[in-house]
């Protein structure tokens, strides 16, 4: 029986609560379990930045074990950015350490009247005044929290200035510069005056069949030592995909309007490795070590976390900035202040586009000329946004609000108000389904069709098979739906999607860890159940079938590059996905007769 730490920040009260085993058996952990819990308590009137919006940090049954890549956690609440289901996931060591400290998750309610820090050390939880930490960047905060607790090895999750200012693009940082970045969970933390959570423990994660589990996890480990995708990620990080993505028309350029642009190759992850890499970094028990620690001498940055592929796209090619050092520096600023690089990059990208079209002028921006290719302006906008100063207060609301203010909502590149990541659905049409149906809005972590259609999976046993990336078909829609279910399962276990053990090994590991007796098909059905609970919750929060859509800009064919002329056929793709999930084609609702 697992346990949750409940924290009422209004009253300053803490208590333990047994994990709801029935929920956990059906929704596993992580974001799936959080969705099941929050389904009971959220409604359309819940203010995302009010004390009634609960914030859950949850791990999963494999977190903290010897299973490679099982070092993640989910932070979930109603999103202030999108108004629907909010979910952010992060790797590192915070999730495992929380379990070693004695808890499977933490459930915050209420809001403190002053800044606080929660510590959980060896099963003992306490709230501390954190007024002196308010205003600190994420690195200073993490160091000072460890110092103040006298726990040098504590793992800390925290917010920066952006979260404090309730910037809707604010994320939660942990383990230096790892981020649960998306959907504004950092703003929810800020609204509760919760600056940081520190965890430390030496407890062990219980396993049902430890010997069997060890054998299986060793087999999994051996698989990922030498395979090509793992080697590539180890050597170049996710940024190693920049040039390949560019060739396929997958890398968004100039606010998703160019399919190819030769200078974009200068953002190469290979070049970054050769010129600016300090070292690789790895999450708990990960043998890939895709994390990057870089430097940017031109900007006097000696130690920077990242950038990953997503950051290079969002703060580089989207903004027509092709200087790697400038992109590294921009990423570093976002890290310091604690902001989602995808959402901020795509929001600044829209500002650039509005300027090009004359829909935004210096009169609207406090005198700022926001143009493509102007790195110094991007640095300035990042700083303004984090503090909600000047035009930064507009950017802090995200891309959709900026487009609406300019009177051109059709130029917003968001799905359900979450900014589209750096995989163009015209390059992999399955991503159109992933984005349109993602429970948290446009998100690549909800179904990485670019990996599946690149052949990077061992998942044929659950019907996930590589296909033609441009194929608009019912089957492609079904495939994307199955992958979405599988990734929702991953975000509930919670595992990293870069390591995909063959289904029998994953099934074996789960059964040996939990004592459950599941099959691959059971796991796929569990993934679908998790998608369904999030969808039901979203309908409860006001979403409708009409929200299952792609932004208009992404339905225009690109004129050049590896995906020129391709447009996702949304009716066909969505029909396939609806059929796979069993949703009503008219209303988009999951069947009412499926019990929660």
């Amino acid at each position, binding site marked *: 029986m697992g346990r949750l730490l409940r924290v009422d920040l209004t009253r300053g009260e803490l208590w333990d609560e047994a994990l709801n085993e029935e929920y956990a058996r059906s929704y596993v952990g992580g974001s799936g379990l959080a969705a099941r819990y929050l389904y009971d308590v959220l409604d359309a009137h819940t203010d995302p930045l009010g004390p009634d919006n609960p914030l859950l940090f949850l791990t999963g049954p494999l977190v903290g074990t010897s299973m490679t890549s099982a070092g993640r956690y989910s932070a979930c609440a109603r999103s202030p950015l999108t108004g629907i289901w909010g979910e952010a996931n992060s790797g590192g060591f915070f999730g495992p350490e929380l379990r070693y400290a004695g808890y499977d998750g933490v459930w915050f309610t209420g809001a403190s009247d002053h800044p606080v820090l929660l510590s959980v050390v060896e099963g003992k939880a306490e709230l501390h005044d954190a007024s002196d930490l308010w205003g600190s960047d994420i690195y200073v905060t993490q160091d000072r929290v460890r110092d103040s607790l006298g726990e040098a090895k504590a793992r800390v999750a925290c917010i920066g200035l952006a979260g404090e200012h309730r910037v809707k693009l604010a994320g939660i940082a942990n383990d230096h510069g790892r981020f649960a970045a998306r959907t504004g969970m950092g703003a929810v933390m800020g609204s509760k005056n919760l600056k940081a959570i520190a965890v430390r423990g030496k407890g062990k994660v219980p396993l049902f069949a430890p010997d069997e589990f060890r054998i299986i996890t060793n087999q999994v480990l051996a698989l990922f030592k030498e*395979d*090509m*995708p793992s*080697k*590539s990620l180890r*050597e*170049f990080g996710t940024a*190693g*995909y920049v*040039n*390949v993505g560019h*060739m396929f028309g997958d890398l968004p350029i100039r606010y998703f309007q160019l399919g190819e642009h030769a200078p974009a*190759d200068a953002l*190469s*992850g*290979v*070049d970054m*490795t*050769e010129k600016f890499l300090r070292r690789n970094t790895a999450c708990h028990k990960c043998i890939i070590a895709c994390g990057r620690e870089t430097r940017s001498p031109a900007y006097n940055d000696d130690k920077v976390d990242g950038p990953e592929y997503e950051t290079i796209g969002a703060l580089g090619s989207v903004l027509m900035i092709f200087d790697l050092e400038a992109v590294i520096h921009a990423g570093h600023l976002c890290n310091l202040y604690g902001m989602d690089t995808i959402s901020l990059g795509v929001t600044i990208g829209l500002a650039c586009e509005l300027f090009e079209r004359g829909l935004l002028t210096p009169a609207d921006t406090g005198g700022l000329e926001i143009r493509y290719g102007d790195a110094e302006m991007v640095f300035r906008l990042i700083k303004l946004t984090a503090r909600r100063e000047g035009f930064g207060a507009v950017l802090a609301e995200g891309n959709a609000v900026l487009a609406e203010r300019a009177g051109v909502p059709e130029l917003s590149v968001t799905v359900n108000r979450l900014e589209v990541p750096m995989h163009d659905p015209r390059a992999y049409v399955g991503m159109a389904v992933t984005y349109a149906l993602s429970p948290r809005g446009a998100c690549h972590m909800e179904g990485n069709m670019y990996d599946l*259609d*690149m*052949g*990077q999976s061992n998942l044929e046993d659950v019907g996930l098979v*590589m296909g033609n990336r441009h194929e608009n078909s019912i089957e492609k829609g079904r495939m994307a739906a199955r992958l979405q279910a599988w990734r929702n399962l991953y975000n509930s276990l919670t595992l990293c999607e870069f390591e995909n053990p063959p289904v029998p090994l994953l099934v074996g590991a789960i059964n040996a860890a939990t004592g459950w007796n599941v099959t691959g098909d059971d796991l796929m059905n569990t993934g679908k159940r998790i998608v369904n609970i999030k969808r039901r919750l979203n309908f409860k929060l006001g979403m409708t079938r009409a929200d299952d859509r792609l932004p208009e800009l992404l339905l225009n064919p690109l004129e050049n590059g590896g995906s020129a002329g391709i447009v996702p056929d949304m009716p066909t793709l969505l029909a396939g996905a609806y059929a796979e999930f069993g949703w009503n084609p008219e209303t988009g609702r999951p069947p009412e007769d499926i019990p929660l």
Partner: protein
Amino acid sequence: MAIKFPSEEWLKEWENRLNTSETYAQAAADWEGDLVIVILPDENYTQTTYLYIGLQHGKASGACFLKSLDEKKAPFTSTAPFGTWRKVLEGRIDVIQAMFSNKIKLVGSMAAIQRQPKPTYELVKVAGTIETDWGS
């Protein structure tokens, strides 16, 4: 008329087409990396075969059969069963996707391929224009 794969004639045709392709010349202008292709036996092919092609700055040269990997050293060696090569050359599997999914095993600098994926892509695209007799 279809040309048998693999054969000296097919290799020479490939070399000629590469040397007359402006697209390849442009894509591979900075490319330096001769290639050995290893064809492994499968149900439709009975032996292991080694093919060599020189690839420097958008030009191809010296395409030939090798007796073994020791006969000529090249910075890149790509190995796959006959059936996989057929799918790649017929465009049914993308060559970059095949490498990333371990369907083609690459020995050589991943950095070079990832920094410049287009030369590899065009190399295969040109091969795909040859009317090929696959022997079955």
